[in-house]
């Protein structure tokens, strides 16, 4: 009995610990280049939406097969799971040929990836928007090929603005605070601004405010997380919640998709930072009268836009170079890439895409600023850890007893020590 129990205990405990521990076998990553040409390649893609992602990639696989005769094995994985799945694949020496993720620099650092010189045609590369090429470039070579992009803007509820007697969206932070106070004063649980600084995507929320106070994560290749502007920005965000009380309860523990967005969608939040997929949802619900505006800046200067792009990176495996190159050629043909981006409600990554999308008046706010959009330093492998540290820590700074400077100092130290 006792032995059995111990065995049961061990099984129960191991069954789960073992999975997370993973079964690392061998060092991943072939030499690349050489070898017999492959007959089949594998794509692991992130799921942007249930309706469109798998549908697009399956159609794409058929087109790819028709064009090249090579099979494309498509595996669509949810954003919740893709980090651990990709990590497990690499531990098990079973990397896919193409991986779609929001980070690439660590993979480039581990020498697992093809650079654009090896797998991207010149015509394709010259069509990519320069700021995305730059964010995809690690140590002088481009490894992170952008698949799509998004830009953030301030969403505001027109009904609540009218009720509170606000004529135009705020241009400065002082105006922003004043407007948020007026909306909160409407009562009935209405909040001026829905602020998601919870672990889901805190780095995005902080970035957009930081950029509009002249701050940045890195300046001249040095980490500047605890710069005076950034401390100022985080203190401003803390005050919005703690002293002005114009945000929802507990912004440091509110995520975007299940916290801030639903508040705005239900008409209870006056303002939120959103992106085009949120607009699509709002249009579909037709419940909230909203409009978008550029972010307010601290002193009222030219607003900065926060842009995000995800990547399609190619793993070096024997014999797959030509197949991978053909994959990119096909993906970046306007019919494919723009169809995908349009269906998912995101923004283009190519010059030709910007031209094609500019006919849509709804996207104008974003497209005008896309080429100048600032990104997080995804080209630095340390960012992959810093981002996680930001997600897990920055929320604490906006709690009533939070200390913005201490939190940013800690993050700065962590970034400088290599993540």
């Amino acid at each position, binding site marked *: *009995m*006792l032995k059995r*129990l*111990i065995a*049961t*205990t*061990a099984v*129960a*405990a*191991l*069954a*789960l*610990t*073992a*999975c*997370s*521990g*993973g*079964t*690392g*076998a*061998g*060092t*991943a*990553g072939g030499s690349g280049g050489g070898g017999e040409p492959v007959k089949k390649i594998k794509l692991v893609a992130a799921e942007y939406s249930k309706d469109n992602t798998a549908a697009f990639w399956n159609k794409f696989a058929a087109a790819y097969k028709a064009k090249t005769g090579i099979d494309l094995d498509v595996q669509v994985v949810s954003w919740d799971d893709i980090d*651990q*799945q*990709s*990590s*497990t*694949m*690499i*531990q098990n020496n079973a990397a896919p040929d193409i991986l779609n993720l929001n980070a690439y620099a*660590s993979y480039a*650092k*581990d020498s*697992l990836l093809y650079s654009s010189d090896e797998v991207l045609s010149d015509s394709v590369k010259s069509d990519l928007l320069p700021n995305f090429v730059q964010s995809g470039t690690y140590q002088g070579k481009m490894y992170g090929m952008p698949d799509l992009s998004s830009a953030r803007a301030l969403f505001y509820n027109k009904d609540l603005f009218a009720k509170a007697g606000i004529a135009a969206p705020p241009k400065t932070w002082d105006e922003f605070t004043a407007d948020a106070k007026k909306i909160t004063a409407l009562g009935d649980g209405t909040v001026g601004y829905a602020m998601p600084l*919870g*672990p*889901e995507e805190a780095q995005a929320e902080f970035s957009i405010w930081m950029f509009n106070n002249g701050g940045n994560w890195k300046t001249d290749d040095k980490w500047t997380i605890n710069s005076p502007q950034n401390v100022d920005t985080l203190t401003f965000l803390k005050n919005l919640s703690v002293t002005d009380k114009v945000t*929802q309860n*507990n912004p*440091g*523990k*509110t*995520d975007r998709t*299940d*916290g801030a967005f639903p508040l705005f969608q239900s008409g209870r939040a006056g303002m939120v930072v959103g992106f085009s997929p949120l607009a699509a949802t709002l249009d579909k619900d037709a419940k909230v009268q909203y409009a978008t505006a550029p972010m307010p800046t601290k002193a009222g200067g030219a607003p900065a836009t926060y842009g995000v792009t995800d990547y399609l990176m190619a793993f070096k495996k024997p014999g797959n170079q030509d197949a991978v190159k053909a994959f990119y050629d096909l993906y970046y043909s306007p019919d494919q890439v723009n169809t995908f981006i349009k269906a998912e409600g995101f923004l283009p990554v190519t010059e030709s895409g910007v031209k094609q999308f500019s006919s849509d008046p709804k996207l104008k706010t974003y497209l005008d600023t896309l080429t100048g959009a600032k990104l997080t330093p995804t080209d630095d*492998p340390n960012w*992959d*850890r*810093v981002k*996680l540290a930001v*997600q*897990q*820590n*920055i*929320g*604490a700074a906006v709690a009533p007893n939070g200390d913005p400077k201490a939190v940013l100092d800690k993050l700065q130290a962590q970034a400088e020590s290599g*993540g």
Partner: protein
Amino acid sequence: MIRSQARSSGSGAGAAGNAAPAPPRGNRPAAGSGRTEVRVAAALPWLGPALVLIAAVVFYPAAELVRASMSDYSITGLLKGSAGLSNYAKVLAHPDLGTVLVNTVVWVVAVLVLSLVISLGLAQLLSKEFFGRKVVRWAVIIPWAASLVITARLFTLLLDYNYGIVNRFLIAVGILDTPIDFLGDDRWTMPSMIAVGVFVTLPFTTYVLLAGLKAIPGDVYEAARVDGASPRQAYTRITLPLLRPALLVASVLNIIYVFNSFPIVYTLNDRNPGFAHDTTITFMYKLAFKSADKSVGMSAAAGVANVLLILVVILVYLRVSRWKDATE
């Protein structure tokens, strides 16, 4: 991957089956040397499949886990070489380890004690004949039948600050003026998780105790009544002592399940940054995938420590509770 946790925590039924009484000692083979060899050889074909299974699902993963815990992995998952014991050192030096250990003790002890106490009452109720008992028995089983992830997600909706029905109800009946942030307020997070933990632990515990109650022969009570024992005396002098084996089985298995419970702690706590409300199991997961450590090796080291920890806890518990006396 880690989702299998849900199953392992939820599979009380299978493990409960394992807790059948050990065979009587008298059946042990005689110590004659020749006969024993023949017996072992003859037994192998029958034992083989089970041995292979145990090797595959217990020893192989255990060996891999230990190996991973002593390896150095890049953030991408790439194996970079051996790490010796440095992963263990890093886990031990982790600034949040103390919080996590305290949380784990609070979580396990609170869920275990509360669910045992409530289950004792429920089992007593369910052992009585009354109208609709069948319906009530089924109702008690339902939380057990539902997937833990679904149950936990449901509770995040019920307990939500902005929309949760629990807050609405408490405000509507006048108990509260302003909503409570059950899952965000640091004072409420652990109690909320414990409440949900008790909710999903009750069915299994109740049924183990119910089986124990059924095994107590009625004539013992009859004799006690004849001797003039009060209901209270009958409960403390007969029911509780005779329930001891069932209580032990329930508590040992619950310690294991509750300790290993991932879905509730993870799901109810997933909007909270940092490790303030994590137990060793979710700590291990976050080390691998969510925290800035993002280290497979450290996570594996924490996993090995988890296994050792639970083994030690169980052994101590069995020692203290004199398990052998109770079951033989």
